[in-house]
């Protein structure tokens, strides 16, 4: 089978098609917001994303602060209440969105470009972004909802595993806590701290504005100015503390009345713009990042039927994000599955991939590159990443050639320096074998 497959792969090398990446326009607004724009005239709609460096990494001791601040924006603005804001968007079919992770806090709008829809939607979006009122009743209600969400986590083995994983991988670093906070911290959050957080971080110099859709560059400039002019210029957020690598292997066992044990294993990984990014990314693609054809899937699922889902991924962040492995299996098989996963990683770090595997991975990543950019929403996602993390504007243009340049030696070298198979944090959440 390998010989046949290699034949298919080699024949493909000759027929790789080249597609240009979108042409990214980039500028700054008058008060310092960075703007990234790609025109997409085909559909009469536009996606606007505003990303602030205002995620949970900025929570300090008030875990949950960033998320709650972000969730409050559309609860009241410029004297309008939650109902009025929601009605203004939905009357014209516009979709308002907000979310907040560890690095990024995002506020977004998807609307038709037809004037009757676009003008009121953009006006309300601007108001929500720049004139939030932080009403007391909404604050109390959302706080209660966050507490209910924290309670719901306790009935989900995967959520329990994730929380314990971050806490143990990151120790004292601000990435250690969950964006949703914890019961103690959320209960003690105050409106005053939300307002202060907003004033410090929701400022032009801390913002990246992304536009993708059926607008001209002239219109895009006007939209970005309108959005940004309501914001205080402010300052960009200060640098985060660097992450220090886990120095000791550790296993955490959490008892849960589930029929499966959820296993999450990993350690500190890499950041955006990491010098080892491509070696680690391609390496992990082969090990556990390529779905049903990865080594981990082959060993755990295809050969042994131990788990429905098994994966590994790097989550590159502002500072070193996690390198995470996971699977779920019947309680009595947990040890066996964990051993298979650990052993697959160990063999990979020692031997690296084969030439056939590397060729297949490159073919998969580069041959499917156009799929990453086949919709406005996907392009907007890449622009936000490029803008937020300060990646070069030609990031997408050079992506394929950088992947193609990776060698087995580079993967082995990067794994030996960066991935310590004997220093993993392992979390097991599940019941006892019966």
């Amino acid at each position, binding site marked *: 089978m390998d010989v046949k497959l290699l034949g298919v792969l080699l024949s493909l090398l000759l027929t790789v098609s080249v597609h240009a990446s979108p042409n990214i326009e980039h500028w700054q607004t008058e008060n310092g917001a960075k703007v990234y724009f790609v025109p997409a005239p085909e559909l009469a709609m536009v996606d606007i994303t505003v990303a602030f460096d205002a995620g949970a990494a900025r929570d300090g001791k008030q875990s949950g602060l960033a998320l709650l601040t972000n969730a409050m924006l559309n609860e009241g603005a410029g004297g309008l209440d939650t109902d009025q804001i929601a009605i203004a968007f939905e009357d*014209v079919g516009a979709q308002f969105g907000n979310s907040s992770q560890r690095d990024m806090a995002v506020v977004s709008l998807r609307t038709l470009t037809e004037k009757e829809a676009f003008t009121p939607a953009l006006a309300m979006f601007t108001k929500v972004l720049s004139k939030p009122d932080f009403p007391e009743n909404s604050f109390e209600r959302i706080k209660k909802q966050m507490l209910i969400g924290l309670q719901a986590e306790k009935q989900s083995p995967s959520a329990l595993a994730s929380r314990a994983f971050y806490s143990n991988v990151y120790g004292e670093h601000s990435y250690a806590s969950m964006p949703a906070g914890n019961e103690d911290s959320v209960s003690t959050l105050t409106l005053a701290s939300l307002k202060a957080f907003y004033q410090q971080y929701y400022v032009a110099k801390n913002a990246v504005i992304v536009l993708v859709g059926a607008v001209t560059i002239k219109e895009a400039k006007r939209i970005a100015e309108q959005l940004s002019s309501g914001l205080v210029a402010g300052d960009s957020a200060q640098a985060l503390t660097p992450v220090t690598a886990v120095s000791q292997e550790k296993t955490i066992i959490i008892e849960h009345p589930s029929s499966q044990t959820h296993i999450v294993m990993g350690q500190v990984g890499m950041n955006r713009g990491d010098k080892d990014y491509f070696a680690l990314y391609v390496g992990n693609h082969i090990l556990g990042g390529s779905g049903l054809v990865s080594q981990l899937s082959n060993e755990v699922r295809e050969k042994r039927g131990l788990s429905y889902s098994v994966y590994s991924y790097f989550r590159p962040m502002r500072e070193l994000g996690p390198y995470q492995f996971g699977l779920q299996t019947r309680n009595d098989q947990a040890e066996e599955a964990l051993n298979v996963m650990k052993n697959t990683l160990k063999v990979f770090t020692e031997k690296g991939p084969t030439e056939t595997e590397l060729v297949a991975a490159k073919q998969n990543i580069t*041959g499917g590159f156009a799929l990453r950019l086949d919709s406005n929403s996907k392009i907007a996602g890449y622009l936000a990443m490029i803008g937020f993390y300060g990646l070069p504007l030609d990031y997408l243009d050079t992506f394929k050639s950088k992947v193609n340049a990776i060698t087995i030696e580079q993967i082995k070298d990067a794994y030996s320096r960066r991935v310590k198979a004997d220093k993993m944090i392992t979390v097991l959440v599940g019941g006892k074998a019966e």
Partner: protein
Amino acid sequence: MLTKFKRIIGLLLVVPVIATANVSEYQLDNGLKLIVKEDHRAPVVVSQVWYKVGSSYEHNGITGISHVLEHMMFKGTENLGPNEFSQIIAANGGRENAFTGRDYTAYFQTLEKDRLEVSFRLEAERMRKLVIDEAELLKEREVVAEERRMRTEDNPHALVREAFNATAFVNSPYHHPVIGWMSDINHYEATDLRQWYQKWYAPNNATVVIVGDVEPEAVYNLAKKYFGPLKPETTAQLKPQTEVEQRGKRTIEVQAPAELPYMMMGWKVPVVNTVDKEQSWEPYALEMLAGILDGGQSARFSRELVRGDEVAASVGAGYGLFSRLADMFLVVGTPAKGNSIAELQLAVMGQIEKLQTELVSEEELHRIKAQVVANAVYERDSVFYQAMQIGMLETIGLDWKLTDQYVANVQAVTAEQVQAVAKKYFKDKGLTVAELIPMPLDSKRPVASAGARHGR
């Protein structure tokens, strides 16, 4: 207010109806249907093969067999080794997977546009030349059992949903879960799978949907080349299995380890496929009713139950008007802290009564219509979703052109029609209610919690 209405109405008229001109439809001599939709925004193509088979085609004892067969479709054919299908797609830069529902099983690949041939060659191969290997099946049974543990056994809401459906539907095959009961999963034999495959996997029971940067005639020629030589099959006639009339409210409790209470309410309602011709507007009125209750942050559930009364931590309404058999209108939710399930149910019933006794405002109707119009544009941002809509409609026995008529049909709904369906269908007689009774998480798994365990 009046000027606002004018503005909204103007908006509704200006947005164009989605053109059907860029869709081409073909049928091969062996019965295979091919639908090609051109979308030249990016140099990609999505290829989906839809089969008319799913869990609603199954009977007790083999529940979930359509789903496990979907898994086995990756495990080798006469000319492909186990997992080789996925390896070839991966080597071509493709993304692929498959999904099984109550009324369909579908396989898909997304590729750069000049790789479509790879998809057709491989899909044609596994349409008629699958090999069910005993050892592979035994392993895959375990994988599916793990999938069921992950999705259902250890998920309190999924356990409630499963018990809820099994209570609401007596003889309709919507009674059983798509993934199947654990006991059935553990006892599929290779012969069961071979028979199921033989019965349903044939060109005359399949629809191929292509959306992307392609030229329809070229796709048609490619389809003739690869699918054309396949022999059709005599597929079985399905029995109607029309659900018996419900004669009273059904209430159940489900005990499972959980922190939070949760409830589901469902009323028996028609869908586009089952409604009488004279009442063909009813599913669209029910769709509108779902929008009035839960179509965004400004809809009644959000405004009055989550905010307003603060009786719900979360509450949602759900209705799907496109399914093969009659279905339910669902309301699910978790009470806010300090409120009980009974209080949440009372509040939901209050909302239903209001729909029965008062006409919804023109303003609300227009808001939902504006969202429907806008969504029809937004949906076109995804080639995959466009293919999904076409494939799903065709496979449940409707015309894909309904995707275009959908917007017009929702726009035609009146306040009187919303009230009429609220009165006609939201009666206790056709209601099923399920409540999750949270059991402690820190003690032993209670006996009542359906935790199947199968040593092998």
